[in-house]
């Protein structure tokens, strides 16, 4: 197990290396120059040239790339062109908001999706099943931004239960924190609930006819216990994969929710940095997101072994 984990961790390095090259190429091939932005529209060419020199943007691209990668190896992601703040520090400041949003969204998703799936499997031969299918389809098809605007109008403005925008760190009170995150969390969760509940329902239906289920029933175990202890437990493996992908997907989804609810997270940071061509920050954030993505996948794989002791990696 340990050996496997280590091997997987080492395998991340080439992935990140390829990501770094792609990111660097894309952003440096896009026109735009931070020097123009810093100096404004009335700037003189000499001033722009001078600033480029100070920022190290006049060096050949290959040199810039090698410098950057060289620093990363020593753990230094560089510093923002605008604030001169280290990129790792900036990501550290922003990750709290994004992570909070993801946790809240994930909790809402699981709290709704898992009971729903169990309920539907329990009532599998009633009208609930087709209703559920169309409902989950609707959930996954609703555009996030539309739902967000609707929720804000309904539960933020007309009936002001939730704040329409903003974010409060958890350190300033858990109640306030949750109050600000429920609406955006719900928006993010909406799509995922349908997806995960359906996935879970399908795998549960599959394991309903397995031998172990029949044995359990034959022993006279209560139907609810059969559903939770035998059917659900065995259906969790494929669902875990989807949940893992969802966590990674949420990282992308937060961009929209963060924009609409003005939450200062990683998504907003990325967009703002792209707009102002803050190269070190863009590169750092994308690399960070890639890291999270790969790590989440690794954790999911390790979870398999935990959920199903038959799976062994060594």
């Amino acid at each position, binding site marked *: 197990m340990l050996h496997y984990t280590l091997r997987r961790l080492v395998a991340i390095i080439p992935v990140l290396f390829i990501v770094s090259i792609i990111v660097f190429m894309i952003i440096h091939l*896009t*026109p*735009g*120059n*931070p020097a*123009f*932005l*810093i*100096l*404004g*529209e*009335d*700037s*003189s*060419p000499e001033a722009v040239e*001078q*600033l480029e020199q*100070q920022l190290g943007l006049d060096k050949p691209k290959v040199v810039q790339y090698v410098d950057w990668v060289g620093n990363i190896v020593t753990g230094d992601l560089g510093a923002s062109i*605008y*604030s*001169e703040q280290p990129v790792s520090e*900036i990501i550290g*400041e922003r990750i709290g908001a994004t992570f909070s949003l993801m946790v809240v969204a994930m909790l809402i998703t699981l709290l*709704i999706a898992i*009971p*729903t799936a169990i*309920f*539907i499997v329990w009532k599998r031969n009633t009208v609930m099943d087709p*209703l*559920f299918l169309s*409902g*989950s389809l*609707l959930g996954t098809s609703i555009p996030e931004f539309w739902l967000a*605007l*609707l*929720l*804000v*109008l*309904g*539960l*933020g*403005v*007309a009936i*002001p239960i939730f*704040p*329409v*925008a*903003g*974010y409060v760190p958890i350190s300033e009170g858990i109640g306030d924190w949750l109050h600000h995150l429920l609406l955006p969390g719900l928006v993010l969760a909406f799509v995922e609930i349908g997806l995960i*509940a359906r996935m879970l329902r399908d795998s549960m239906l599959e394991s309903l006819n397995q031998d172990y289920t029949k044995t359990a029933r034959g022993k006279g175990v209560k139907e609810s216990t059969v559903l939770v202890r035998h059917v659900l437990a065995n259906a969790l493996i494929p669902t875990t994969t989807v949940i893992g992908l969802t966590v990674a997907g949420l990282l992308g989804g937060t961009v929209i929710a963060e924009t*609409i*609810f*003005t939450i*200062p997270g990683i998504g*907003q*940071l990325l967009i*703002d940095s792209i*707009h*102002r*061509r803050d190269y070190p920050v863009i590169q750092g954030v994308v690399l960070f997101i890639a890291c999270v993505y790969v790590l989440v996948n690794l954790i999911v794989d390790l979870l398999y072994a935990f959920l199903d002791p038959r799976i062994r990696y060594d």
Partner: protein
Amino acid sequence: MRLKHALPLLTILILSLILAACGNDSPSGETEDNAVGEKQSGGTIDVAFNSEPDTLDLMSNASSPTRDIAWHIFETLVALDKDFAVQPMIAEDYNISDDQKVYTITIREGVNFHDGTTVASEDVAASLERWQLVSSVGKTASNFIEEVKTLDELTIEITLNQVYNGFLDDMAAPKTGLVIIPKEIAEEAGEKPLIPEQLIGTGPYQFENWERGKEIVLKKFDDYSQREETDWGGLTGKKEATLDQINFLIVKDPQVKLNGIKTDLYDYAQSIPTDLYEVVETTPNTSPVSYINGYTMMIPDKSEAPFDELKVRQAFQYALDKEEIAQSTYGNEEFYNMDGALFDPSQTELYSAEGTDAYLVHDQEKAKELLAESDYNGEPITIMYSNNNEGYKRISQMAEQQLEAVGFTVELEPYEWATYLEKWQDPSSWDIVTIGYSTRFSPNELGFLVQDKNSSGWYSSDRWTKLMNQWALAASSEERQEILAEMNQTVSDEIPFLKIANETTLDVMSDDIQEYDAWIGPRFWNTWKK
């Protein structure tokens, strides 16, 4: 179960939407602006601020987001009052020698910087030095500055190499003017923009914190050295920091701003699209705020065919129906004004209506004729604009139709701002740009007429240069008026750019904010909150 949950939710949503819609129709309970209660000090104001500035270095950056926050922190040696006349600010007084070349400026005693030190003549000298390096207006002025001497602790003497009457205006420019910062910081920063730790000024509010992407916080500066003049206004005179704190929250989406104002999340929201004016007007407990914000224009690239030829530019002018463009761009007549002059009518010292007769001429036949006589052979012309501004887009689209109607072939090229700035440098990537400039306060600040630069479409004119030289020498109001009229005429004859319309900006504020004066942008001194 899912559907069971979804149905009530949907019902709530639909009901809320109906409620929201009704709310907008009901008559607003707007309170009288003048019904001011007892003046209160303290409190925090939350401002939904349109876009995060790239820097707060007011001396080097001429963008409006920088200005609107930084002018709470920094002050200039001399500054504009509400009528756009130059008055002392950090300066006590100034004296200009008889030959108009030597400026002796005395500094007020005991003007405190936010770091606890007081302004001395060496700080002014160091700021002046940096200003000539980093400010576009400062660079113009540096051509005339021969010598800077500190006579004593509070007196500075600036000698010019020739008479230059734009000098005071340059120092007082609301954007990139002569901001006074401590000597060490001016020297340390040099050409680099100030970083947050270096944001030390003398203003009524001091820089507290900048959480990128979220907010910029300013705190009341307790040891502010206040002037006494209550009738000056603008950027000088008495500035009282009544509020304890100003939070500039970065909120880009107009809908979020309006929702936030309605639910008391914000006290003030900046830059609301003018087509939402009716919504703003009918929102209870809020008032619209509007102020002049320069004008929009289309600038042809005069360094290359086809617009290097005057006839093609004339055809361009005759082809445009500017009233139609402005009408469809701004909608509400409260938010634009058709005036052909280089400055706003409210800028009495700078405004001249003379020489603007050609501004609204529109004659398609004449345009076709001129185009036929010219060397233009139907090659596609590119109109480039930045898609961060809805107005630029609409103007460009209207112009495209009108230009094609007289025989131009037009291609539109929208870019996001950073790309736009880069493409703007290269004459081969565009033929016309659509852009706006905020209100300017001296002919030196008209970036779209600076000779041989991308921002003016590589305008090169002996006539304009001569006028600028005359401007530098002009001493009396009458002389200046004459030159301003001639400047209008020159623009009208040579067509370096085509002015579309004067713009008015729409902000919205809560009725809790008292004695607020919009002037040319959001300023939160002398204003207080109920």
